[in-house]
């Protein structure tokens, strides 16, 4: 979907449309314009939404689940661009019965069951596997001197981590997934998370059905299949929907920050050389990348009672988008927020959100992100975007590139390197 309204994103911030390529490609400049105007900005498309852009206002709204309910959907799921309500869609309705769209106190029952699969100690057990798989992917292109960072590395690694390490799909079945993605018709704006998940729906449903028949191994799929959530087991369709949610939340997001950060490093050779020379700096660098390029840019809320936020009157029933990506670049909190600064205090970036719905997989995402940079920089320390290529963002609420082809001095595969040594 590559339709533009022909509006100027920087002049018409009140026409902000998260699906209009003109706005998407200029997203960070649009957020900067919003910061000049205030913390809470009115956007008229899709029946009228409030964009919460200020860090302080996002902090307040994200933690106040009573006033700002997550039991809601993104603008295009509810309304046409000119504000006509859309009829209910079963595919969206089932997602309203998953972890992400259930408010506290019921939400806590889900988190107490599912959080244990995502603690630092538990995700640390996947480190060796992630590292190995990153190197398997690098082996496939390192001798050729060229690859697509997104299509050949970040995106497949993100799929492998969630499907194999989290959902325990056997590694040898991963190619089935890639075949599904490869069979998708080309899309000029990149495949959205919705498109990818729709294409995998049948595969995921079959996988969960198979797991239901197998002896439990105690992973997150088994918890969804067998545990009681607030006193009752989940119906099968909700088990599947929650698995789909884990995919939606964990795959494109982590892959995108890996690719976007490597794109940043392609344009900043000095920083890249520093990280290659001192790999211990990769961890703090990851946090500054998360501040600058956090994948989940916006999250919806519905106002449950009249309230005032940063001096703006909101009414019950109003639609809101928490602009986490804008908050992480708020000039009220960060000096020269558009600049990468390794020494910056990044602890209050909002890449993983805030409040009850903060990203359940943040520990895994941080691990995967760091390993992906460590392994690629160790083996391909110097790389350049293919000449003539330009960074284009996917048209989606996840920020990330459509592709990212690079060239580099060819290296050797690990097995060959070992044999030579």
């Amino acid at each position: 979907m590559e339709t533009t309204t022909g509006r100027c994103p920087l002049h018409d911030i009140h026409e902000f449309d998260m699906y209009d390529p003109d706005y998407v490609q200029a997203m960070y400049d649009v957020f900067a314009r919003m910061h000049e105007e205030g913390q809470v900005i009115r956007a008229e498309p899709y029946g009228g939404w409030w964009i919460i852009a200020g860090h302080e206002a996002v902090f307040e709204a994200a933690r106040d689940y009573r006033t700002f309910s997550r039991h809601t959907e993104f603008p295009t799921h509810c309304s046409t661009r000119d504000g006509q309500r859309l009829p209910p869609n079963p595919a969206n309705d089932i997602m309203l019965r998953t972890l992400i769209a259930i408010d506290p106190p019921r939400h806590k029952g889900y988190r107490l069951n599912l959080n244990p699969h995502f603690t630092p100690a538990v995700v640390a057990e996947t480190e060796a596997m992630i590292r190995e798989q990153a190197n398997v992917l690098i082996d496939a292109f390192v001798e050729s001197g060229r690859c697509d960072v997104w299509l050949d590395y970040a995106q497949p690694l993100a799929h492998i981590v969630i499907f194999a390490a989290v959902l325990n799909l056997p590694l040898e079945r991963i190619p089935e997934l890639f075949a599904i993605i490869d069979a998708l018709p080309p899309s000029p704006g990149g495949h959205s998370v919705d498109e990818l998940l729709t294409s995998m729906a049948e595969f995921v449903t079959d996988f969960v059905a198979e797991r239901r028949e197998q002896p439990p191994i105690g992973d997150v799929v088994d918890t969804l299949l067998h545990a009681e959530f607030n006193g009752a087991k989940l119906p099968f369709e909700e088990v599947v929907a929650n698995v789909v949610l884990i995919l939606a939340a964990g795959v494109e997001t982590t892959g995108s920050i890996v690719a976007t950060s490597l794109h940043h490093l392609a344009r900043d050779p000095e920083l890249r050389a520093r990280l290659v020379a001192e790999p211990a700096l990769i961890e703090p660098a990851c946090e500054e990348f998360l501040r600058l390029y956090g994948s989940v840019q916006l999250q919806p809320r519905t106002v449950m009672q009249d309230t005032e936020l940063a001096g703006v009157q909101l009414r019950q029933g109003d639609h809101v988008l928490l602009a986490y990506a804008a908050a992480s670049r708020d000039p009220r909190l960060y000096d020269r927020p558009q600049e990468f600064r390794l020494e910056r205090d990044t602890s209050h970036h909002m890449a993983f959100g805030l409040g009850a719905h903060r990203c359940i997989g943040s520990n895994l995402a941080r691990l995967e992100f760091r390993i992906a940079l460590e392994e690629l920089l160790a083996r391909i320390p110097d790389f350049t975007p293919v000449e003539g290529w330009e960074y284009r963002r996917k048209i989606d609420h996840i920020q990330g590139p459509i592709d990212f082809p690079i060239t580099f001095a060819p290296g050797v595969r690990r097995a060959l390197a070992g044999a030579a040594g």
Partner: protein
Amino acid sequence: MRVVLDLDVCQGHARCARIAPEVFGLDDAGYAVLLAEDVPPGREGAVREAAAACPERAIEIVE
């Protein structure tokens, strides 16, 4: 120096346990637990850093 943790506010970002593991641990669901209410000598700096880094502002320091 004492530490007060607001468990109603903690969402399990796990930053405190990363920064000051002598004072902050995590329970099975990844939420913070206080390992020591009274901060061991020499760890005041790390604990202050952990409190400042909490995205939810769930950690209070009583001097």
